[in-house]
């Protein structure tokens, strides 16, 4: 106990020095990162080559939190109509890069059906390889946009009654 008490000031000093070194290191890293991002902004081709072309991971890392004030009402994202559920933002970022969200939300299919649509888009519409996102996207679509049984002829729905003038 006594020994430790005597050594304490020295020990604390060393600790403080270590912290200072780490803070310096952290600041340097932050500065370097900042310079790196500015570099990417000025030379976007590097960004294109390094991330976009090298792999699909970019789509995951690119899903930024919603930056503008957007509404979610009753579990539906108002601007796009997407059902808000796990991975919906990946689906949004991926699908709406090329087409309207409405093309997704008006359709229903099982996992196999959605896979077929993705393959068709990859074959004919220049959709990229979805990589690790594909199972996540399929999970979301097959769960939230599953087929609805309609039968051979559905009943008339959403009838808005009005008085017909004679």
């Amino acid at each position, binding site marked *: 106990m006594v020994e430790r008490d005597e050594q304490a000031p020295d020990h604390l000093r060393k600790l403080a020095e270590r912290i200072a070194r780490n803070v310096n290191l952290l600041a340097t890293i932050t500065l370097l990162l900042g310079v790196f991002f500015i570099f990417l*902004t*000025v030379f*976007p081709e590097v960004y*294109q080559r390094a991330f*976009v072309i090298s792999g699909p991971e*970019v*789509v995951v890392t*690119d*899903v*930024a*939190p*919603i*930056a*503008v004030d*957007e509404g979610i009402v009753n579990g539906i994202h108002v*601007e*796009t109509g997407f059902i808000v559920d796990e991975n919906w*933002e990946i689906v*949004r*970022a*991926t699908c*709406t*890069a*090329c*087409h*309207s*969200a*409405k*093309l997704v939300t*008006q*359709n*229903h*299919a099982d996992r196999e*059906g959605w896979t*077929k*649509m993705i393959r068709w888009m990859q074959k*004919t*519409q*220049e959709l*990229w390889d979805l990589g690790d996102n594909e199972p996540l996207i399929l999970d979301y679509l097959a769960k939230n946009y599953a*087929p*609805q*049984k*309609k*039968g*051979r*002829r*559905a009943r*008339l729905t959403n*009838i*808005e*009654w*009005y*008085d*017909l003038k*004679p």
Partner: protein
Amino acid sequence: MKKKEPTLSLLERYAIDPIEADRLVFGRESDPVTRRGFLRNAGLSAMAVVLGGSVVFAKEMPAGLLPALLLDGGDEDLLAKLGKDKGLIVLNDKPFNIETPAHLLDDEVTPVSRMFVRNNGLIPTGVDASKWTLTIDGESVERKVSFSLNDLKTKFQHHTYRLVLECGGNGRAEFDPPAEGNQWNVGAVQCAEWTGVRLRDLLEKAGVKKNAIYIGYYGTDTHLSGDPDKVVISRGVPMRKAVEDETLIAFAMNGKDIPEAHGYPLRLVIGGWPASVSGKWLKRIAVRDKVHDGPKMTGDSYKVPIESVEPGTVVPEEKLRIIESMPVKSLITYPKSGASLLPGQKLSVRGHAWAGDLAVKEMHVSIDFGTTWMKASLLPPQNRLAWQRWSAELTLPKKGYYEVWARATDSEGRSQPMVVPGWNAKGYLNNATHRIAVRVK
């Protein structure tokens, strides 16, 4: 007077000058030569922030292409921008796919405001009609020929026809298992009055070789991927359909220039077949020595199984056939579904009927779920391939819920089915009887 800038909405800015709008709104400057990408990355991060993610193919994104998410004015703004009635239904805003509810199709000649829109790509911008040309080429022409828009208007005889253009996927929403694509209900159909020259007259100038089988069109719309070299859609018809009297190279619709969304300044118009054969923003027609093989002619596009299949069956491509004439069909355009009547009140119903290449021979209506059918009066078409007006006076015998069903029969005796017909994976050719709900209180 100078326009007050701050009063313009984002959509208006893009409508007036998309390139300038990009610069104003996002500080985006695209490459002046290719009109693509983001020069010095100007605007990319601003746009990405607004979109809540990065633009994955920023390099390929065409200038002035309004990101779909930013159509924040909603459907009403889009309809207004395109000159459409606010009652139309936006199925898709990139590309534009807009449906007309049945009760808004009551006009004899469909006005632009009530005309469905089915686009596969993006509407071309900055069209200069004075410099527009149409080229006829392909392996089965004697010589390649080009015509300016003025040549077409001044050197050939004009013809005007009312033609039914119906999307092959009209009625897709009813298929079970569901068919992928825009979920059209009943309103992807229109009958406008088209004026132009006969394709046949132009083909004569080019000289068609004996081995000609098909024609294929090419337009100037932009692919959704932004790739300028990628053809969006290039379909066509066999020679026998191409040389019919009613097959027009049209420069006017309902007596005016063709609206932007419908093909300005030139459109191939072919009545009675899937409307996708009526190529918009027409630049070129190729006369082919084989079945045309442009995008959406091949694979499973606009094709149905040769032999009917159990719903849900996977059908290989070689067992599919290209859709030609559309089947017999009709709509009840008056009254709107949901009409409440007083006891004893007469009910006048009317609508249009059409039958692809054929005419409609008879029209029937039922108010008892198909138990009994009553013959409706039916007028002849204005010209071949136009729709026909039908009407009937009905008496609903007592209080209760009714449905009016309408059923047309074509000149070869084929009628509309009361249930959804032959299932096909892409959901084409649903010509089941149209139904409206009516009640007596």
